């Protein structure tokens, strides 16, 4: 489970970077505009952080 949590954390973090750089845009289908762009990025990184916390709890 720890490996899965770490893998997910890396995936969400990388997706956040790619999204921020505009390389992927699958989330922008729900809305345009600067505020929502930032929101999607922040949510992806929060998910990455939560996965790291999840990994921390796995022995």
């Amino acid at each position, binding site marked *: 489970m720890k490996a899965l949590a770490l893998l997910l954390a890396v995936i969400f973090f990388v997706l956040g970077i790619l999204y921020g750089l505009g390389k992927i845009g699958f989330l922008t289908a729900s809305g345009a505009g600067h505020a929502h762009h930032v929101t999607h990025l922040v949510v992806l990184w929060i998910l990455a952080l939560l996965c790291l916390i999840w990994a921390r*709890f796995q022995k």
Partner: protein
Amino acid sequence: MTFAQAIALAILQGVSELFPVSSLGHTILVPALLQWHNIDRSDPTFLAFVVVLHLGTALALVLFYREEWWRIVRALVRSVLRGQLSQDRDEAVGWRLVVGTIPVGIIGVIAQDPVRRLFASAAAAAAFLMVNGAVMFLGEFLRRRQHAAARASRRIEQMSYAQSAAVGIAQAFALLPGISRSGASIAGGLLCDLDHEEAAHYSFLLATPVIGAAALLEIPRLFAPGAHLAGLEALAGGVVAAIAAYLSVAFLTRYFKRNDLRPFGWYCLIFGALCLVLAHIGVLT
């Protein structure tokens, strides 16, 4: 938007955000009922004003539960540093709040705009308000059935993580105008064997990160091109929304010690039906 309209909207937002009657539905229906045609809900200035109202509401919730939030945050930090869960009550509540917030965060970011575009009309808000009333009656009915089966009430920290996530998913239905965030989460809590007081408590704690984070992430709207928010209006609106929200949560925490969701269910059914008829005959647009 006049100053009086700004104050009225602030009171409406502060009260209806926490009462289980849908703030989004009311901010669509009430201006339409009062024929406030000068308010354009897509105008950047109006959207910036709404951000201020949400910040005021979130601030009121943080202030009301300040001691509990302080204990929860400290317990969560200790838990992460230790890398181990303990039997601490604040820690258990904190992790259930984290788990309950994740679904609404993800669903909200992905679905908020298309859902709101699709159901932005007064008729849709009125219809969903009636659905909201029915959900509250259904929650009460199922809760009574569980009570009749002699199932003991649980406390927040006794909920499973799956139940916490389920309440979070129920909360996400509030993206639909007319469906109340607190109504959905209180009804969800009742179905997880919480009593009314605990369900309302969990709902209000769950509201704080959701409303607060949504408002913080929307702060760029304050500086969006075309947003000309008057300082006095914004300040007064934020303060009034905060006071209204604080008084509302103080009232509701007392109310749910002895009472249930049914009065709000009746209100939603009657007001929703009235608005639906008015929309049908063309009075409400």
